[in-house]
């Protein structure tokens, strides 16, 4: 069992007394005692401070209380919505992600994404009254108006669980988009709209596609899949109080075009898809400008009178204010492109964006007071809440949440990871492609290898220590090399951070933990199928009794605790557009989550690696395996 600094800090926060402090310091220093530490690393070594990291906000129906979901301290903080005085902090589960109130406001539901549970909080007692097991990596949650059913979006299992609202017993699952994450109940309660953060599968080297999954609440059935062509990464969705206008915040990547420069939306468009009776046919509208981008849109809120629509841009550290009347005028008067999307018109937003309101680091969730006079914004990486007056579109006050007053190197590194300020015109940050510090399910055509050459799949960045070198060609020996001048030249296309900021970023990235593996049994044992797969993974003889050369066994290249020998091999997967067939052996950490596969993402599934792209057994001896054996092998790989 391994812990990151943050995980340790969370655990330690629940232990009090001098012993905890001594242990904390000893653990913090332990890596430094074990190995030589370079001077710059020593300077950056942090005490693992735990920050509130407010992610989502909810107002009680009477507007008296503000519920703040704090991801790193793993609690819901209850504030007086007028004075911002702390009322109570309610501990919840591991890495909470989603939060919703029941219609009456008597219960608050919190999804705990790393222990796969749902915390039910009694808002009178301000205490957790139940913790229910749910699906893999629960994220968004809503309860229907009747209080009969709770819907939970599961990011890893790509579905929406329907629970009995009284018992928490799961009744059914509804298939949603890949990385199902955010749920919104329509004002009349009849529909639930679900979004997902990773794109659905599309043919290799074609545009990504996503959907808004529309659910009939009463019947708990999917009634529509609203297509979002070209979109990869959909976050919060809001509906106007009259239910006639819906808006979802999205990323619209340009991954199929060589990433030669960032100007003119070279890497991303950040957009909203609008739908509903006010709009007619759904339409995608951009949030960007010609020289300023709305990087990483996340939260959406529509004012109660439907005059304004607000969007948080996590990477741009601002809130966009949109005039709804002007927006609808634009939608109805501007001839629509054949694609139905205005995403590529960088001058469009001048027609409806009123202003950009600067807020804190990485703004995420936002919520209106019931009277619409205040807009609350959670600045996740600053531990503050910005309060905006929608009449003036100005921040009237900023509330600091309790927590460390010192910004640690680890925290600075995380801020650097999420901000877009280092890239040309603020278009991208690390998190634009590594959504929530993971990956994006896309393949990119990077410029230095040549246009149309060396198409590369974006890899997961969890638990990186011991997986060096980086890049599919193994060209970067460490994180500072990966994220330093190379990133400046070929990604940011602008001056980036200095050495200290780079060291902070590297510290953050080195500490990114692996999510809990959902395919492993709780006791660490393997299922019979996984056991058989493990034997195949490690076998030295094929089914005909012929020895498999050591270098052609799965376990040779994918060796070690992370499943990589950290060496490059040619496994016969070179494409005509590749400059070389010699490729870095990817780690197997949480490999079940990271489809598609191979260096260029050409294998849609793990199985296709061997059934389609291994005709000569260069990528391990696999052509002698039966379908059942391949299934066993896959079952084992999923446990890595």
């Amino acid at each position, binding site marked *: 069992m391994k812990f990151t600094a943050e995980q340790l800090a969370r655990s330690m926060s629940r232990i009090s007394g001098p012993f905890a402090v001594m242990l904390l310091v000893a653990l913090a220093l332990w890596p430094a005692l074990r190995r030589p530490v370079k001077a710059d690393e020593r300077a950056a070594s942090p005490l693992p401070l735990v920050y509130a990291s407010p992610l989502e906000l909810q107002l009680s129906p009477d507007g008296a209380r503000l519920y703040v979901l704090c991801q790193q301290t793993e609690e819901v903080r209850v504030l007086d919505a007028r004075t911002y005085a702390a009322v109570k902090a309610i501990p919840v589960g591991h890495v909470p992600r989603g939060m919703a109130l029941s219609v009456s406001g008597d219960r608050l539901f919190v999804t705990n994404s790393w222990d796969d549970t749902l915390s039910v909080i009694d808002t009178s007692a301000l205490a957790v009254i139940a913790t229910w097991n749910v699906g893999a990596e629960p994220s968004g949650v809503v309860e229907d108006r009747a209080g009969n059913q709770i819907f939970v979006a599961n990011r890893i299992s790509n579905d929406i669980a329907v629970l009995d609202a009284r018992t928490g017993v799961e009744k059914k699952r509804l298939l949603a988009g890949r990385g199902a994450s955010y749920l919104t109940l329509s004002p009349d309660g009849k529909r639930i709209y679900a979004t997902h953060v990773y794109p659905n599968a599309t043919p290799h*080297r*074609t*545009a990504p596609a996503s959907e808004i999954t529309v659910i009939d609440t009463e019947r708990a059935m999917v009634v529509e899949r609203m297509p979002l062509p*070209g979109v990869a990464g959909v976050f919060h969705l809001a509906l106007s109080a009259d239910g006639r206008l819906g808006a979802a915040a999205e990323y*619209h*990547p*340009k*991954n*199929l*075009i*060589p990433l*030669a*420069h960032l*100007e*003119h*939306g*070279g890497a991303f*468009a950040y957009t909203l898809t609008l739908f509903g009776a006010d709009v007619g046919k759904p339409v995608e509208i951009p949030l960007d*400008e*010609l*020289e*300023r981008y709305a990087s990483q849109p996340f939260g959406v809120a529509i004012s109660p009178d439907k005059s304004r629509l607000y969007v948080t841009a996590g990477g741009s550290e601002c809130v966009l204010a949109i005039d709804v009347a002007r927006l609808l005028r634009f939608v109805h008067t501007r001839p629509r492109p054949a*694609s139905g999307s205005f*995403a*590529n*018109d*960088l*001058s469009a*937003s*001048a027609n409806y*964006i009123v202003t950009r309101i600067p807020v804190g680091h990485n703004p995420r969730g936002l919520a209106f007071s019931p009277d619409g006079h205040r807009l609350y914004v959670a600045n996740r990486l600053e531990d503050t809440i910005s309060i905006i007056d929608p009449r003036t579109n100005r921040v009237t006050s900023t509330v600091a949440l309790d927590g460390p007053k010192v910004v640690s190197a680890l925290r600075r590194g995380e801020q650097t990871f999420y901000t877009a300020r280092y890239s*040309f*015109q603020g278009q991208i940050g690390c998190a634009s492609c590594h959504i929530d510090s993971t990956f994006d399910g896309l393949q990119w*055509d990077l*410029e*230095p290898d*040549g*246009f*149309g*050459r060396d198409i590369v799949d974006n890899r997961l960045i969890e638990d990186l220590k011991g997986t060096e070198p980086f890049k599919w060609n193994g060209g970067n020996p460490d994180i500072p090399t990966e994220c330093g*001048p190379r990133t*400046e*030249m*070929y990604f*940011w*296309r*602008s*001056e*980036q951070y200095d050495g200290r900021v780079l060291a902070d970023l590297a510290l953050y990235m080195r500490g990114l933990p692996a999510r809990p593996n959902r395919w492993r049994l709780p006791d660490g044992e393997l299922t019979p199928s996984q056991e058989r797969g493990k034997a195949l993974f490690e076998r030295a003889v094929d089914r005909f009794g012929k020895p498999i050369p050591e270098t052609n066994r799965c376990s040779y290249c994918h060796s070690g605790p992370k499943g990589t020998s950290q060496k490059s091999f040619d496994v016969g997967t070179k494409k005509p*557009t590749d400059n070389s067939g010699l490729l870095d052996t990817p780690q197997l950490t949480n490999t079940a989550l990271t489809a598609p596969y191979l260096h260029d993402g050409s294998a849609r599934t793990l199985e296709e690696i061997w059934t389609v792209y291994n005709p000569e057994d260069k990528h391990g001896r696999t052509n002698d395996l039966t379908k059942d054996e391949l299934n066993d092998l896959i079952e084992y790989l999923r446990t890595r």
Partner: protein
Amino acid sequence: MRLRFRVLSMAAMVATLVPVCGSAPGVTKTLDEDIVVTAAPVYEPLAVLRGEERFPQGAQLLLVHQGNAAPLVKGFAASADANISFDGKSVLFAGKQAASDPWQIWELTLADGSVRRLIANSADAIRPLYLPAGQLVYAGRTSTGYRLVVAGKASLSMMAPVAADAGETLLPISHLQGSAIPEDVLLDGRILFEANFPLGSGTTPELFLVYSDGSGVESYRCDHGRARWGGKQLASGDVIFTHGASLARFTSPMAHEVPVVAPHAEYAGDLAETAQGDWVVSSRASSAAHYALKLARPDLPNSASLAMQAVFAVSGENLVDPVLVAPRTRPHHHPSALHPWSYANLLALDSRLSREGDLRTVPASVRLETMDAQGRAVANGTAPVEADGSFFVQVPGDRPIRFALLNAKGAVVRQEHGWFWIRSGEQRICTGCHTGPERASENRVPDVLMRTAVPLDLTGAKAVSQSQTNAPGGN
């Protein structure tokens, strides 16, 4: 004799420095900030685009401090084009020690008044601007006009004069027949420059952008037509420029210029923005008058136009190009990603797309022309255009080039109005042909890259007929 006249006239001018009234008679404003401004009896702002002298009767930099002016540098027959360093401690300028000297680039240290020459050349060097990372950009005179030159090596501070033959420390970054004059360095690191539109062939002043390594040259906006010059970026990111009789701005959200409602006057060149957000502009009532400095309040509520207050004037002198003597935000440095090639690659994603109206039929081919040393257009060959309008070609670097789209019979269906260049080692993508900066590209693999990742060689290094060997299905 001529030199003596100039010195005398300059001395007389300095002796008669007086604040005078502008558009608000009887009301003058003393600025809190020190300002350096160029004073000249005659000012021809656009002469430089014709390769001619802007200050035919000389010019002198003045330091205006609390309403009083004094020459900024001593011992110079002429000085102009002040640019303050990012730390506010030194001033770049163009100067002539003797009237017969060419304009050269100098740097003044404000603390002690010491002066050193940074560019030593036999030709005029004007309009210097500080760049990040110890570099500067200026306009150097050539036989075909002024060209942009970047001096200094990244990460190397300019501690010594840079000779014209200093190799890599002097990098020409514009490659045109005609002049390009730097106006400002934008916060995103790009150089704003003025040149005539169509680039390399036209006569209408226009504003353009280029990275500090010479890559990515493009029009700032493509609503061409009116003459625009003298651009300066504000802290907000907007760029203010002049049409001569009016001011206008480029803003990030808009694809076209936005008028600035200002009193009717003639406006000259650059403005300066104070720490309070006010503008120090140079204007005159008519061509019969001289330019004087005015303070404008751009954000006064309910004002139909800029409220102007006279700040400073000098009888018989034009006061132009004011700069504040204060630290300022350092722009981002552009990390050059040019490859070590003698050529460049250009990928057009959909050549049918244009601000002038999208073509309804797919061109059959694209022709590349380069300009030779005599200014003649030379055809370098053609490349096929794919069904989706894409093409991928290798072109000569650091030379004027232009494209024409041809139909199946070889007739031109559309061609560029002017010329542009691609730096050697640059890999560039165009959304279409003159689509304007507001049009981003669609996310799809262009057909040409599905067919081949090898650009068709149109550098002229091989026989033109080579292009015929790269028909669809090749490579």
